[in-house]
């Protein structure tokens, strides 16, 4: 069923038509991959809601449902700059804003007696600084007349638009306090770099769409949840898997996609019954690729068995079973 609403800010269908007439040779591999996203109406609605309300989009769902790849697709459709930051257990909220290399500064201060290095040279802008004010990030927060030792590299994966999409991948991997520590900079769209006494602020005429993914491994603070537009992604069904395979590998000439998708769905069901991680869309695409390259057909005896056990089942699928 097609949902009826105004796709004012984010309309992938219209942009896809434009893409068809574009020269794709200038695109990076990452951008090409980002364009191969199978969007649904509920996704388009949630992204539009996040853009018009200027709220972070919190995306959750099972592995392989397209949480992480959504942000790149949105950036590509909107034509905005795109930043990624994969959260780890060691990630602190400050890492997303800026870093300060105190040890290098201390070392330089001791080695070069008499000449005190400027703090700017030891500041490393984080992904949110780049998204909010890429100009000041490029100068490490220094004024226009200040000479820098080295300019930092903009970590944008692509795009030159003043607006940006930022992916914070797997927020639940971080310390439980990290999302709370981000509330103020996200609410205000600004933060202060203490070492520089500098104020970084997202200009009113610019927009940053923050896409945050979670696997639900750790609960998020209610205050954080209440600030986000939420989107639940479901694992793709048989039809969607076939469309995803077409987006990545082109039309199904040999009738390969359906049987491999069926095999994946069966294994996913078995894995869920055993309460282990089910194989995801990524493994499905790998299996399709391998079948095409090695000319293996589903049900081809031992070769097919080996392929499914190596690519779809994997060890974790049946570990503990």
């Amino acid at each position: 069923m097609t949902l009826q609403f105004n796709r004012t800010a984010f309309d992938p269908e219209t942009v896809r038509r434009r893409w068809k007439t574009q020269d794709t040779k200038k695109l990076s591999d990452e951008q090409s991959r980002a364009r191969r996203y199978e969007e649904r109406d509920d996704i388009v609605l949630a992204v539009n809601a996040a853009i018009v309300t200027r709220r972070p989009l919190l995306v959750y769902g099972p592995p392989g449902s397209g949480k992480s790849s959504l942000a790149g697709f949105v950036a590509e459709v909107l034509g905005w700059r795109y930043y990624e930051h994969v959260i780890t257990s060691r990630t602190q909220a400050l890492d997303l804003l800026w870093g300060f290399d105190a040890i290098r500064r201390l070392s330089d201060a001791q080695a070069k007696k008499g000449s005190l290095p400027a703090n700017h040279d030891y500041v490393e802008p984080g992904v949110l600084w780049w998204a909010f004010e890429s100009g000041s990030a490029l100068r490490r927060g220094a004024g226009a007349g200040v000479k820098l030792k080295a300019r930092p590299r903009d970590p944008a994966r692509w795009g030159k638009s003043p607006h940006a999409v930022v992916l914070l991948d797997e927020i639940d991997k971080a310390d439980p306090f990290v999302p709370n520590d981000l509330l103020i900079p996200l609410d205000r769209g600004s933060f202060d770099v203490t070492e520089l006494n500098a104020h970084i602020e997202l200009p009113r005429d610019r927009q940053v769409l923050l896409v945050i993914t979670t696997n639900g491994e750790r609960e998020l603070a209610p205050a954080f949840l209440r600030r986000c537009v939420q989107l639940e992604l479901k694992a793709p069904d048989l039809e969607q898997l076939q469309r995803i395979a077409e987006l990545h590998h082109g039309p199904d000439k040999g009738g390969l996609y359906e049987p491999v998708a069926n095999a994946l769905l069966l294994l996913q069901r078995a894995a869920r019954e055993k309460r282990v991680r089910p194989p995801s869309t990524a493994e499905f695409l790998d299996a399709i690729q391998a079948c095409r390259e090695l000319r293996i057909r589903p049900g081809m005896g031992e070769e097919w068995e080996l392929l499914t056990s190596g690519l779809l089942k994997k060890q974790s699928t049946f570990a503990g079973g």
Partner: protein
Amino acid sequence: MSRRGEISLGDMLRAVRELAPRDAESRRLLRRALDPLGLMRSLWGEHAGEPEVLPSSEPSLPALTERALPASLPKPSTALPIEAPEAGEVLPTRLSQSGGAELPLRLPGPELEVLDHSSAPPMLPPPSPLFVPAWQTGILTAALGVPRPEGPLDVPRMVPQLARQLPVREFPRRQVRSLRLGVQVLVDVSESMVPFAEDRKQLLACVRAVLGPDRVEVQQFAGVPSRGVRRRAGAALHPFESPASGTPLLVLSDLGIGASVFSDELPDVEEWRHFAGVARRAGSRVVALVPYSSARWPRGLQRRMHLLHWDRHTTARAVLQELQR
């Protein structure tokens, strides 16, 4: 990004004005995206009575809903392995998790040895886990993580040394929580813990998954660990020995709350206090998971060890708050 705090009426109005949802499903999805906790339900007239998600005190992610027990009991299936318990074995069946009768059922011996599988009673569904499964890793990481000076350089502590031109003999580092010291798990196998046998098993599997099996040492005890511990059922008891200094102790026990007052295993609070003191002097933090609410915990024990309610409402944040107490 907004500078207005939580999602509010203004956000709702803006989204409705800009996106103009024209069908019921679009309105439902928009409401769900913007107001998943249903706090502004009255604004969405036609859907006012429709419960969408859990209340704010509950987690909003769908993992939680998977925990609900099926509405009806599954029919016995020949495909399922039905194993007759050994003679005299205590049936690990929890009848209720919410304050109802929780009685271990002692089975008579001989006749069960010839139990016919086809005449076995309908199998009960597996008990709902005590912790929210999706949160279990986070809870255990929080409970078992030990603060260690292994973080980034602690610049504020180092600056005074440098300012006084003192030689830096050791880099002061910030504290970070680490799991690398492993854990000694003390599992209470008293009769009163039988209703939680499946939970013990499942939690131990998770502890091993989080820390790695080689970092988990498991000992069993009945009553209180200081009465003696053993590595496995049937093995000889030996005196409890604290693990290496710094290694946390995780106790899975009801602290005797569910034990009969006539039971030999019923522990005395003083015995628990003594045990906690021994562990603390040896440099180990004691964290006990108790499947009963705090109202029933022995008085004064919380001052000696960290007690956590082994329950679905316990979160990693609550664990950290307790450990920082």
